[in-house]
């Protein structure tokens, strides 16, 4: 097979070589438990502290506001369940959107079974939550608004600043799942009035299995994993020192390169979008045209089915995704595509391509060339296309 063209960076990224280099000493050389008191363990503790400092710096918060977790899903679960538990006496109402990641949606559904009320906001055709909807859904018993920073499927960036302002005005806590946004777009939690924020290392060239939750000072936080005194007694378990060190390094690199990367990826992404829309008929771009992640393109090809497209691309060494990785393998069309108003059959024919700064223009052109051919092949064997042609030629 020819060179791999990896266009699924929203599912996960290759770890940056410098990140691996940063992690390595903590496996075999400085392997001490950060909680141990001897000087040897000081190296591990310093690695954890240094990473926390980088991350806090990136978000504009204090180091004491960062809690390491095992990933984005844990952070989402912890944030939402913690607020639900801590603020139960204040109320039982949570506001979220219909296009959240399952880590948020399923947690909300779990709470809904346990005496909480959840409002799932609609989004517009571009996948944006309307701030006025958020405001209109606030009730006296609303304790939490949780709206993602950027959507993992269609890449749309949500109006976080406006939502943060509304949350603050109404004195409701605001959590954002920023798993897709951290490292890709600038985020200042104080400026945006974000009270809690979830992130995951493997989306920004860090290792898998490590994430963090930012929790603004002053928020009542329950512990998600009980046990030892790690993470200021809020999240027990021996620290994943290499993972934490790697995440710190990945964040540092992401920050340093963000501007250049965003410019490069945006240009490439726009080239991809333009070619696909121009050269493959009956195709729609999903998500907002400009307010989207620099590296995300999401298309619906009418008359074809997404899995077939993916597998045909795979045969040519091109990695893409339809819907989010976690749900692929299921036959339900993406809840996100349904929420932006796609009919079922179009939702089934969607393809997400997410770039990195290693992606070349040649990769994109090869991909578009391949897509043109295979979409045509699939359409030529599709009864839906046959019907369409018939009806149109009448």
């Amino acid at each position, binding site marked *: 097979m020819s060179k791999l063209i990896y266009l699924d960076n929203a599912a996960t990224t290759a770890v940056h070589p410098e990140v691996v280099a940063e992690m390595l000493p903590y496996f075999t050389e400085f392997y001490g438990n950060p909680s141990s008191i001897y*000087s040897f363990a000081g190296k591990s503790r310093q690695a954890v502290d240094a990473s926390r400092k980088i991350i806090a710096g990136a978000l504009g918060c204090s180091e004491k506001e960062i809690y390491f977790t095992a990933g984005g899903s844990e952070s989402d679960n912890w944030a939402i369940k913690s607020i639900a538990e801590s603020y139960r006496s204040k109320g039982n109402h949570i506001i979220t959107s219909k296009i959240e990641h399952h880590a948020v949606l399923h947690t909300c559904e779990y709470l809904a079974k346990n005496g909480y009320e959840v409002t799932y906001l609609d989004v517009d055709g571009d996948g944006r939550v309307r701030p006025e909807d958020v405001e209109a859904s606030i009730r006296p018993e609303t304790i939490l608004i949780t709206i993602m920073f950027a959507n993992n499927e269609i890449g749309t960036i949500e109006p976080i600043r406006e939502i943060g302002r509304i949350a603050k005005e109404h004195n409701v806590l605001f959590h954002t799942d920023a798993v897709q946004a951290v490292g890709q777009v600038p985020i200042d939690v104080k400026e945006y009035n974000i009270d809690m924020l979830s992130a995951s290392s493997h989306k920004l060239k860090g290792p898998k299995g490590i994430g963090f939750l930012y929790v603004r000072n002053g928020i009542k936080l329950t512990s998600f994993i009980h046990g030892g005194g790690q993470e200021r007694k809020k999240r027990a378990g021996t620290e994943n020192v290499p993972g934490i060190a790697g995440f710190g390094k990945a964040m540092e690199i992401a920050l340093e390169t963000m501007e250049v990367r965003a410019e490069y990826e945006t240009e490439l992404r726009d080239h991809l979008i333009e070619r696909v829309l121009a050269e493959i008929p009956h195709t729609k771009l999903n998500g907002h045209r400009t307010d989207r992640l620099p590296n995300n393109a999401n298309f619906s090809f009418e008359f074809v089915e997404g899995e077939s497209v993916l597998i045909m691309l795979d045969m040519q060494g091109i990695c893409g995704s339809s819907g989010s990785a976690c749900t692929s393998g299921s036959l339900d069309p993406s809840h996100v595509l349904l929420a932006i108003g796609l009919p079922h059959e179009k939702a089934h024919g969607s393809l997400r391509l997410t770039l990195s700064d290693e992606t070349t223009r040649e990769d994109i052109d090869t991909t578009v060339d391949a897509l043109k051919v295979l979409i045509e092949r699939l359409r030529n064997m599709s009864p839906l296309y046959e019907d369409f042609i018939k009806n149109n030629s009448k």
Partner: protein
Amino acid sequence: MYCCSFSDKVMDHFMSPRNVGVISDADAEGSSGDPECGDALTIYIKVEDYVITDISFLVFGCVAAIASSSMTTELAKGRNLEEALQITNQDIADALDGLPESKMHCSVLGADALENAIKNYYTKNQKK
């Protein structure tokens, strides 16, 4: 408590404490702490003309407790009793170039034992 959170002075006084031991003909002694809680300190003093001419200690405790006991004796030696009574746990911690937040209470041990020793001296000598 992590070893690296201690100043060089603390480590020096911990590894080479000054004035350790018992003064068998001490003029007074004073204690503080509770072995149940992991710390106990006894300070022995010899006094001439209201001046502490010799001082020693025995301690059961953590790094900070050992270092601050040692420093307490250094600070008190050669002082007159009234001056020595003024020594606070903050003075002890300062003389050690500081103690970690969670170990500040260990320096109270030194200040308390010294105060008790001096008070015992006064009580004994008043009775005479």
